[in-house]
Every structure is written in structure tokens, then in C-alpha cells.
């Protein structure tokens, strides 16, 4: 069961690309960073690209009639093209840059939910969603009355497709909004099937790829979804930039959420005319340097190869599954067949927050809490939350061993 990462994937070499991993740490222990699911560390190429932009080629975009501004505009638009290629969009104009995936989902809730959906149509999410894919739909419901339906998940943490089918059956669902990968259970959802089912019932599909896009090759055309989003900082890129991809015919129909410069063609006090997509959705000065950084991050993971990254992660997942099973008193949340490198767990002797404090002392960075997925924790009766270890491409098996060992000792500490 322990598959090996391909020989080309040299994790020791990759770790050298990340300056923070070789930083001296408090108490001299090496940093075991197992919180990449919350936000990933940044490789030198990303940092360098941002620095280079600010030191040699910075100006506002879309506006100037001079060389520096053209350079900056070209870099910004090149980032859009790289992003389009990364998820196999047909055209760069289908890519809208946002602050993060939270804003991307809100953009759909606003532009599609409020702007296009009919009041009688429902939104269907699932029990494993991140708050970013719950709260915008609650706001839509409270504001416009669109019913919010919730697809159940099974005890092993997989989508209950029978329930999905049932909740689609009356044809009232206008939009299915579901995570491509859970940030708590690790579950990778069967997106092609979800899309087929939703489309069969006349519903559009938004996929929250915040976790999935980091871990495997995403092909929006092959998946067939209508909207897809992810967030730069989890993909080894900068904070302050996220991505919404949408089918162009959908984006065209959506009214903008924010008004301002660069998103209009003509302005008089009486009336403004929206610019074509994606400019329509990018009011004001965008995150220029961050787009450049995201481009570098995409180039970085693409050069390593998403398949290699996925294989490495699969080997980590297998190793973690078997290793964590040996820790006495540990319960893993979720046991999906198809899963990524995120492990949330409860230790019988310790509250998650106390546990995280202990692990931190051992140099192990994990998260404690409900990971912005409170309803999911409620579903599993874990109101105290869980402790979560999540992996990046720089994560090693040794780090997982260190975690397992520390968990075992932590249990002793609290008993």
C-alpha cells in the first residue's frame, strides 16, 4: 500500500527551494510545517519574481502609455494566461483575479446568484464545505430567498450521491457549489459525476478548488463545470490573489460586484457601461505584484509536474494513514477512498488546542479548531474541533513520523 513517489521527485532538493524551511527555529528544533492546507510556504522563485517586478518593472497596469506600464500590463496579463493554461481554460479572458477563493465564491453568489438565478431557484452545497462556500449562500438566501440545500455526507466523509440526486430531483436547484477537495476530511469529490448529475437537472456547478488545485492537475474542460476557483497562497503563491474561472457565457451575464476604475468603458453621471470580461470584475488597481508571484508559483509547480506532486502526496497519504493508525487513542476524521494530504484527528486525552500547543513546542505546526468548517465538525459531534495536519510538496515521511511520535508522547503527557 506504500507507493513510492517517482524518482524524479526529490523532496530534499525541493525543500531547498523554500527559504523558510531552513530558517533556524526557536529551541533549535527544525520546523515541521504541517499546516500547508491553511496556507503554503513560498519558494524562492515566487519571492524573487515579486521582488523583480517591484525593482525593475513596476507601474500601474492598463493605464499608462509608457514602457514600464506596458511591461507591468504584460506581466499581469501573462499571469492570467498562465493561470488559464494551468486549469486548461479555453481563453485567458475566462480568468478573473480576486483576492482569494472566498471572494471568488462571493463573486459567483453575487453575479450569478443575485444577478442571474431566479428567486425560486435553490443552491445546493454539502456538509463538508468550508465557510467560504456556506456563508455567501446563506447571505443570498437571507437576502433574496433562494433556498439553501445541503447534501449529506457519509460517515466515511464522502458525498452521499443518492442524497445529491434526491436534492436535485425537483429541478429547482440552480447551482451546485461543492468543494473539489475537503480541507478537513481530505476527501476528493467525484466532480465529473457531480457535474453530470447537476447538468442533467439543469443546475450549474461551482467547484471550490482551494485545496484540490494544489494537489492535482485540474482540467476545467474535462471536468465540465461552470465555475472553478482557487486561491494563490495555498498554491505556494502570494497572499492577496485568488482565481475565479467561469464559462465566458456565464461571466458575460453576471453583473459586476464592485464598481470603479478599469471595469467600465464609459462613464457619465447618468450611466456607466461595463467593460468586457474579465475587466468588468476587476475594479480598481489589481494585485499586480501578486499576479506576477502567482505566475511564478504556477510555473514552479508545473515544472515539477502536477502528476509528480500528486504521486508524492499519495505516498504521503498512504504513509500517514498507516502511521497515524499506530497512535493510541487517535481517531481520524474521514476515510474517503480518494483523498488528499489533509488529516484531521481527535486524540482521546487532549483537547485539540492543548494538543496543538504541545506539538508547537516540538516544532510541529498544525492547526487546531474547526478549520472554517464548523457544520462539518458538528456533523461528526466534534464541537471541540480537531487537530489537523496537512501536507505540501515539501512534506516528508520523516515529518509524518515525527508527528506520530509526538502524538504518542502528547497522549502520555495528558493522561
Amino acid at each position, binding site marked *: 500500500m506504500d507507493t513510492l513517489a517517482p524518482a524524479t521527485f526529490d523532496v530534499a532538493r525541493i525543500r531547498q527551494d523554500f527559504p523558510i524551511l531552513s530558517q533556524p527555529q526557536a529551541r533549535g528544533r527544525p520546523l515541521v510545517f504541517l499546516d500547508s492546507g491553511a496556507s503554503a510556504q513560498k519558494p524562492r522563485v515566487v519571492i524573487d519574481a515579486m521582488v523583480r517586478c517591484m525593482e525593475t518593472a513596476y507601474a500601474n497596469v492598463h493605464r499608462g502609455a509608457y514602457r514600464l506600464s506596458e511591461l507591468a500590463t504584460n506581466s499581469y496579463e501573462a499571469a492570467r494566461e498562465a493561470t488559464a493554461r494551468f486549469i486548461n481554460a479555453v481563453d485567458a479572458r475566462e480568468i478573473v483575479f480576486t483576492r482569494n477563493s472566498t471572494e471568488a465564491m462571493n463573486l459567483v453568489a453575487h453575479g450569478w446568484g443575485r444577478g442571474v438565478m431566479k428567486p425560486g431557484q435553490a443552491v445546493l452545497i454539502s456538509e463538508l464545505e468550508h465557510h467560504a462556500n456556506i456563508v455567501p449562500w446563506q447571505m443570498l438566501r437571507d437576502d433574496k430567498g433562494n433556498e439553501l440545500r445541503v447534501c449529506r455526507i457519509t460517515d466515511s466523509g464522502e458525498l452521499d450521491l443518492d442524497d445529491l440526486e434526491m436534492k436535485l430531483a425537483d429541478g429547482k436547484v440552480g447551482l451546485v457549489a461543492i468543494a473539489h477537495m475537503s480541507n478537513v476530511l481530505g476527501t476528493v469529490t467525484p466532480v465529473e459525476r457531480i457535474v453530470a448529475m447537476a447538468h442533467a437537472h439543469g443546475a450549474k456547478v461551482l467547484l471550490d478548488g482551494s485545496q484540490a488545485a494544489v494537489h492535482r492537475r485540474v482540467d476545467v474542460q474535462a471536468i465540465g463545470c461552470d465555475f472553478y476557483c482557487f486561491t494563490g497562497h495555498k498554491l505556494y503563491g502570494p497572499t492577496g490573489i485568488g482565481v475565479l474561472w467561469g464559462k465566458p457565457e456565464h461571466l458575460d451575464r453576471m453583473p459586476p460586484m464592485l464598481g470603479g476604475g478599469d471595469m467600465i468603458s464609459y462613464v457619465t453621471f447618468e450611466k456607466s457601461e461595463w467593460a468586457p470580461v474579465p475587466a468588468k470584475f476587476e475594479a480598481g488597481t489589481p494585485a499586480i505584484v501578486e499576479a506576477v508571484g502567482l505566475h511564478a508559483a504556477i510555473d514552479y509547480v508545473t515544472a515539477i509536474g502536477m502528476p509528480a506532486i500528486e504521486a508524492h502526496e499519495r505516498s504521503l497519504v498512504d504513509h500517514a494513514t498507516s502511521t497515524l493508525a499506530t497512535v493510541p487513542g487517535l481517531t481520524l476524521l474521514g476515510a474517503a477512498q480518494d483523498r488528499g494530504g489533509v488529516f484531521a484527528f481527535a486524540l482521546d486525552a*487532549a*483537547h*485539540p*488546542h*492543548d494538543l496543538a*500547543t*504541545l506539538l508547537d*513546542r*516540538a516544532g510541529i505546526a498544525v492547526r*487546531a*479548531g*474547526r478549520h472554517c468548517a464548523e457544520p462539518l*465538525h458538528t456533523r461528526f459531534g466534534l*464541537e*471541540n*474541533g480537531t487537530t489537523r495536519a496537512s501536507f505540501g510538496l515539501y512534506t516528508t515521511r520523516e515529518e509524518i513520523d515525527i508527528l506520530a511520535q*509526538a502524538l504518542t*508522547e*502528547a497522549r*502520555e*503527557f*495528558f493522561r
Partner: protein
Amino acid sequence: MSGLFDDLRDLYQEVILDHGRKPRNFRRLDDADATARGDNPMCGDRIELFIRRAPDGSIADAAFQGRGCAISTASASLMTETVKGKTADEAKDLGAKFRELAMTGVCPDCGASFADEMERLAPLSGVHEFPSRVKCATLAWHTLNAALDGAKEASSE
């Protein structure tokens, strides 16, 4: 036992672990005069605090229910023990001193009025080295203030 977590014994002193595992006054007070809910949304800690006043206005009984980490549970437990018999003003004063202790590790002018009480609470002083945990230790005291002021909710945010 290995030494991996030895330097955490300051934070998790035996009395903390003990109160965390077996909190005192962990029950409803059905004849409570005042109750308040305390929340720490960050980690999901949530306590409900019950106060019964004596005829002279002092705190005759204090109890709590809820869930939380070892620190917040121990702190609530120790608090309910400590404030019994105090007037509202004394309890608030004690809370202010305790918060200073939790945030800084010391409380220079504490000894003056509440030497015994502060000594009982002292095991929680280690929390000041863990900024993200200070809120766990102070939640119960925030909630006490809320209950004494007649508010229904407190938040450590």
C-alpha cells in the same frame, strides 16, 4: 516519560491538568441569580456560568458548564472556587488582577489585597508565554464580568 514536552510543565502544571480533567463546580445552578455565556469562537470554547448571590450581595455560589481546552476549563474551575464569598466588586477586581497575571506573568500589586487567591490562580501564569492561549485562561473571568453586569454573553475576542 520522554522529555519532548518537559518545558511545557510550566504551562500544564499538575493542578491545571487536574482541574482540566475534573473541573470543580461543573454543574448547573438551578437557583442562579445570574448566568452568562462565554464564547471563544477561535477554538470553540463555550462556557455557561451560573452565579447565586447571598442576601448581602456577595457571591454565594458559582458554577459552570460547557466545553473547552484544559486551560479554559481549569481556569473556570479555579475561578468558581476563588470567587465564592467575594462581593461583585472584589470579584471584578480579582479578575482584573488575574488578567494582568495571565498576560504578563506577573502582577506586582496583587499580593496586597488577594494574596491567597492569587496564589491559587498562580499556576495559570505560565499562559503568558503563549499569547494564543491567554484568551483560554481569561474567558471565564470575562464571562463572570458579564454575569455580574447582567449581560448575557461574553466573548474573548
